[in-house]
């Protein structure tokens, strides 16, 4: 890859994105057996710098780094010097002074990963693990990986695939990264939400927009349900949870309208009964747990490619 950081899907070319997915596939094949661990990043230090609670993303990155034999330092902002007013700059410089070569950052402020990487504060590689309402590129990569594994005919081109992203587009970093990546790979992406949850300026995105899930659902090959954050309720983005669920939830009726070949996705954690019914979440078409598993191998590929680890052995090696 030409980039030394992964801050946004825009850091990747189409060719690089497919290469990254290929690398992830290779890593999954090798670590699928009894041997889970590769020595490629032995002696290298990776930091999980998490200013927001996100147990699943942090664990996924931690598992990815450990399977590549990297040393992992977890830094959670809560109860740390950050809550005493230490700045992002000082925190990052402190961690680099402790030997961090790559910093995985999750932060509530949009653009914080880019600031960390491009302000001259540190030299370490930076991976964006979700910045505010901006992007979450590794989530998009694991989504693409998951879609690809279910549509082998589209291994090198997503053209012809129709993907719906449903829900709170306005506040979703997953939606931004998914829209950029999946369209770059060739898919047709439709954002489906009430107008209150679609950003002003969305015309500049390479996507279609629809206010009706019922109209869109029969044509979709993949439907990505976004989590409804409870705080959105207080800001009058929609009248009630019940009304939202009725219009934009993946209900059991809508599950029946979905093509049998279509897959159901969710970045988690789910609100069962709100944006997705239990029947949909647990249906055979649901690939939500696969997404979690794929997250680890995709993040392994990201760390491996950014840090330029030793070549991947053809078979798993005991370390």
């Amino acid at each position: 890859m030409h980039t030394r950081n992964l801050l946004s899907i825009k850091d990747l070319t189409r060719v690089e994105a497919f290469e990254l997915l290929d690398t992830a596939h290779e890593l999954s094949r090798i670590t699928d057996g009894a041997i889970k661990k590769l020595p490629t990043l032995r002696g290298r230090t990776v930091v999980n710098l998490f200013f927001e609670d996100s147990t699943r993303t942090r664990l996924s990155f931690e598992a990815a780094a450990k399977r590549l034999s990297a040393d992992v330092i977890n830094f959670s902002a809560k109860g740390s010097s950050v809550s005493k007013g230490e700045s992002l700059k000082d925190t990052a410089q402190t961690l680099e002074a402790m030997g961090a070569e790559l910093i995985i950052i999750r932060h509530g402020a949009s653009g914080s990963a880019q600031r960390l990487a491009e302000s001259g504060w540190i030299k370490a590689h930076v991976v964006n693990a979700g910045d505010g309402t901006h992007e979450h590129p590794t989530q998009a990569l694991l989504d693409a990986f998951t879609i690809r594994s279910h549509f082998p005919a589209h291994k090198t081109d997503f053209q012809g695939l129709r993907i719906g992203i449903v829900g709170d587009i306005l506040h979703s970093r997953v939606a931004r990264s998914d829209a950029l990546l999946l369209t770059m790979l060739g898919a047709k992406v439709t954002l489906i939400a009430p107008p209150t949850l679609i950003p002003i300026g969305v015309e500049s995105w390479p996507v279609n927009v629809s206010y009706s899930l019922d109209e869109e659902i029969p044509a979709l090959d993949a439907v990505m349900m976004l989590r409804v954050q409870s705080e959105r309720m207080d800001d009058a983005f929609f009248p009630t949870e019940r009304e939202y669920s009725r219009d934009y939830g993946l209900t059991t009726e809508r599950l029946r309208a979905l093509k049998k070949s279509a897959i159901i996705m969710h970045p988690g954690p789910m609100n069962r009964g709100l944006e997705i019914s239990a029947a949909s979440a647990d249906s055979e078409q649901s690939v939500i747990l696969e997404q979690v598993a794929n997250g680890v191998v995709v993040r392994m590929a990201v760390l491996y490619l950014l840090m330029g680890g030793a070549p991947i052995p053809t078979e798993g090696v005991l370390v």
Partner: protein
Amino acid sequence: MRNNDFLLKNAVLADGVAVDVEVRSDRISRISPGITSELPNIDVKGNYLLPGLVDLHTHLREPGKENSETIATGSRAAVIGGYTAVSAMANTSPVADTAGVVEQVARLGKAAGLCDVYPIGAVTVGLKGDSLSEISAMAQSAARVRIFSDDGNCVSDPLLMRRALEYVKTFGGVIAQHAQEPKLTAGAQMNEGAVSSRLGLKGWPAVAEESIIARDILMAHYVQSRLHICHLTTKGGVELVRWAKSQGISVTAEVTPHHLLLTDDLAEGYDPIYKVNPPLRTQADVDALRTGLADGTIDIVATDHAPHPSEDKDCEWAAAAFGMVGLETALSVVVQSLIKTGLMSWPTLVNRMSTTPAKIAGYEDHYGIEIGSFANFIVVDPNAEWKVNRNQLHSRSNNTPFAEMVLPATVVHTFYRGVHVVRDGQLTGMKYE
């Protein structure tokens, strides 16, 4: 002792007329071509002689935030930029909402002695928007405050705004409104549009500014008072002011240099040097602001000079402070945006940056270059260019968005009440006492 009488030779007024100007006892004693005098001669070599610039919107941060700026350092930045009068915004700590604070600001301005520092008074106590501050006491104080503003906050309560507009009629004051509907802009970070949608930064819709402008125009008309709109930034706002003027409503408006040159796509790198309130808008807005300033819909340029220490900008966007310094670059940015583009002439620039702001505020010592008036004027080389160097600013803060830009026009000399405070672009160390 006032031993600084002099004769300025070979000056050219904004309208192209070549003159010499004699200054005796702080005031202009003669203006005409070919004056000879025993006084020291200062040859300005055919450069423009313009009245000193007048700023109606300057954050000098003192009292309370002296790590960003003081009245003394802000005065230095002002005269380097060609300003001989600035208006100190009320959002200090304590807030300039009593006669005591505005008199202190005026006194510190006099002590600095480089330019006139006119305090602006807060409309509401503590800028809180709950109750009117003692406006009359500030007006009658030694500081003789005429402009009142809660700048930084909008006087969003319509009843309070009505009362403020009515109240200042007693002494011919003006309310300078920071037009920002607070509920539409809660947590807002940048202009709402294509760029904010991609960056995931909370949008600041144009309508949040325009709805307040529309409301207050109607209110000013209703109570027959004077309204001044601070830092207009949107095309729709320009159209509202244009309509108001066509109806004979007593409204004036200002635009900042940065909104005349910069656009919201600069936020793409998340560098908070471009974070400002109100936010940078789109090119269509910039074009409308330029046209509005040229045709007089927008009356004046005001800097909204807003110094911040580096730690408040060297951080993530959301954590950063809003604001940009502007005193030292304003003239050049306006020349770049309006004169280099052929939209405006030098005499109009003088009107927008000096005489009209002075008249809006009633700064009588700054009504222009006339015999008998105080010698508040500057010499500008319109053909020179300079590169903005963040580390060479005279403000205590260096949060300029124009760093490394090459801009036209330099301020060669600044004279304040006859004192040669800037010579060849450098502070002389002299001050008016």
